[in-house]
């Protein structure tokens, strides 16, 4: 298993390298530059050149690229041009928020997906499954910004039950846990509604497929009851596609949905990435892309490891 992990790490480092390189040059080759975000659009050419010289942006592009790797090798991700803080610390302060937000959302949607998928697999082709399927398709097709905006309109604006944006109440000096939780409800609901559809659909298909297999008939022939067949036999085998999908959505847990975080003005990594891209804050942008790349690799690896635990036939070859 260790050798499998090492082999996967070696083959994935190339794709992460290509990804980072691509983003580095794409970001630097776009017109404009961070100097304008710092000085404003009416900056004089002389002051722009001065800022560029200070940030090292007047150097040849290849040299800048080499310096970036040199710094990374020394554990440095650079300084944010805009906020003038070290990227590493900056990322972590935003990352915490995203982590809380998305962990809640993924846990909730996985639990819901398992429940809905079981129901869908058991009643496959009959009305309860068709009803679930109709909702799945509806939410799968709905754009995230629209769902988010509707939720804000109903629950924040009209009913006034929940806060519409931000992470906590800025007016209170010592916000309690309740304030943080209240601010999480709407974004978490939005992400859950949107991710539960594909997850439950795949899981439902898997449950239906597993229920038709020969070993289920064998279990029935042993006199095993239906609920026990479902939970002791079918569940474990049906979880595999769900785990693969969760592995693929792993990067989201850390980067967050750019759109959802911006609609709710939630200070997470997705929001930071959006801001950095607009301001051409290269060090932050590239660091986030690097993290996304690494997380994609790790997510896939984790999914494979968990599937290996679920399925004794997997041999890590």
């Amino acid at each position, binding site marked *: 298993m260790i050798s499998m992990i090492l082999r996967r790490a070696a083959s994935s480092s190339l794709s992460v390298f290509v990804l980072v390189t691509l983003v580095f040059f794409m970001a630097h080759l776009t017109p404009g530059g961070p100097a304008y975000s710092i000085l404003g659009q009416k900056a004089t050419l002389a002051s722009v050149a001065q800022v560029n010289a200070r940030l090292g942006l007047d150097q040849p592009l290849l040299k800048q690229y080499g310096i970036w790797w040199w710094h990374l090798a020394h554990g440095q991700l650079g300084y944010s041009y805009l906020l003038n803080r070290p990227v590493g610390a900056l990322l972590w302060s935003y990352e915490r928020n995203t982590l809380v937000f998305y962990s809640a959302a993924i846990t909730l949607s996985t639990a819901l997906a398992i429940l809905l998928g079981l129901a869908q697999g058991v009643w496959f082709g009959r009305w309860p499954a068709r009803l679930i399927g109709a909702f799945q398709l509806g939410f799968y097709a709905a754009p995230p910004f629209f769902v988010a905006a509707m939720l804000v309109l109903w629950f924040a604006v009209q009913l006034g039950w929940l806060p519409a944006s931000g992470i906590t109440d800025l007016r209170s000096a010592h916000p309690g846990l309740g304030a943080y939780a209240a601010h999480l409800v709407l974004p978490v609901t939005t992400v859950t509604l949107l991710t539960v559809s594909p997850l439950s659909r795949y899981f439902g298909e898997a449950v239906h497929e597993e229920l038709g*297999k*020969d*070993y289920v*008939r*064998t*279990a*029935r*022939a*042993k*006199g*095993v*009851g239906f609920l*026990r067949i479902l939970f*002791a*036999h079918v569940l*474990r*085998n049906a979880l595999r596609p769900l785990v693969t999908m969760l592995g693929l959505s792993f990067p989201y847990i850390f980067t967050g949905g750019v759109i959802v975080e911006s609609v709710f003005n939630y200070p997470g990594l997705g929001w930071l990435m959006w801001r950095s891209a607009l301001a051409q804050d290269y060090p932050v942008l590239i660091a986030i892309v690097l993290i996304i790349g690494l997380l994609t690799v790790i997510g896939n690896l984790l999914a494979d490891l968990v599937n290996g635990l*679920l*399925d*004794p*036939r997997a041999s890590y*070859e």
Partner: protein
Amino acid sequence: MSPVLEIRNLSVALPRGGAGLVKVLEDFSLAIAPGEMLGLVGESGSGKTIAALSIMRLLPPGAALSGEIRLGGQNLAQASEAEMRRVRGKRIGMVFQNPLAALNPSRSVAAQIAEAWRVHEGGSARAARARALDLLGEVGIPNPAARLDDYPHQFSGGMRQRVMIAMALACAPQLLIADEPSTGLDPLVAAQIMALITRLRRERDMAVLFVTHDLSVVRDHADSIHVLYAGRSAEWGGARDFFAQPRHPYSEALLGAVPRLGVARLRTIPGALPEPEARPPGCRFAPRCAYVRPDCTATDPPPLRAGGTHAACLYPLSAAPPAEPAPDLPAGERRYLPLLQARALGVRYPGHAAPALQGVSLELGRGECLGIVGASGSGKSTLGRAILQMQPHTGQVTLNGQDVTALRGAALRGWRRRLQVVFQDPRESMNPRMRVGEIIAEPLVLQGQTARAANAARVAELLNNVGLSAEMASRFPATLSGGQAQRVAIARALAAQPELIVLDEPTSALDVSTQAMLLNLLKALGRRLGLSYILISHDFAVVSYMADRIAVLREGQVVETGPVARLISAPRDAYTAALVGAARR
């Protein structure tokens, strides 16, 4: 002695597509006494599996069932699902075909066997595990304690079926239903499974309902036989009387269709099994019967006692069957012009220590059929692929003196045309989106013959050659029966006008009567077109029926090669002798 199981007038109807309920089993009655083994025999579509599943009430949803199924004092046909759960696994155990699929891949065998015990008997997990250990030992798993926590995929096919049997026996049932338990296993392993079931039923005085499509499997073991045809009983009674003198023409035909050692000619049953929606009036076998008379199609034949058995036939056979003509085994070895030579073939798959094939040398004459026999994993399919140049190998293959191992690109493709292949599962090897006509014409198109009219004529001719009507050309593979699909695969192979056809287990997925038809067809085609065959199979009897010479393969090496008659009468190798011993005769 009162029977363990008594079925009276069981009828089952299943929902089929838009056609509503269709009767698949009618007026089925049987009784099994304690310790008795009853062979329930029929081809696919006869209703035998439906009969077995009805007893367990495991029919697909929507099935309608009428009649009586008495187990002890209880009528299972009327039992509720909760009552049935107490019967399944407790009083009736069931063993299925293909244990790899029938066992849960992600639970250890101990867990699966213990579950069968705990569901009914309760008790601690430790007690159930001890019970699983006992059972694994009883069914002959070597070193059972070390294998308790293994998963099904870690066992060989025969051992997996033993695990399945252990599971069915967990609560010491009165009745064991075995649905084709030895089908798909190597003959030597299948014989061991049969011996195991026989031993267990003697020791436990357990009744066994043995469901199979192959009469010869139950010949040595069953006490009584019940033959089903198209959803109705054809003949039933004591096994000894049945095999001495089958009374129903279908039984006789079925017995004659099984390839056995030293049989010169297989009986072919004309026509095909009728679909459940389109079963003929009167006797269902009448359209295919060699002894049919006008009134056979008018009325349902009543069961008549004839000799030792009952036959649902107006005119049961009375005379002893005509003596089989003496097998025309070739007096001397026939001489063939050499066609293909393979020298020192070797194949090694990456990641495997042992080579899949090692130092295999063969030769094949023009018009000769060479049989390659071996257990699964012996490398026989690898050998076929190496000869076809579909598999990188060491050594040399020459066709008509030309070394083909050196051929590349267009020259290799041109050479490939002269060698064709027919696989075990023909439907898997056809593009489901192409019509039969296009499938057969593809080799022609690849040779540059694109004239539509000429190709259509050629396709019709080829279909005719393999005994299919020209209208088949417009069908899709999914609508073909197994036998029809295999005939289309042969027609496709013939389209390229090959010199040699490699047949890789061509009949092992087919029913007995379909197999007989196909083997006879291949034999006739070979003679008429001067084809050479390499026939790969694990069934020694099938190979001995077809082949002129046989090469016995074991663990990647040829242990013996020789003419069929010599191999049967005087095998030189112990493994060959075991294969011959396990073959039907």
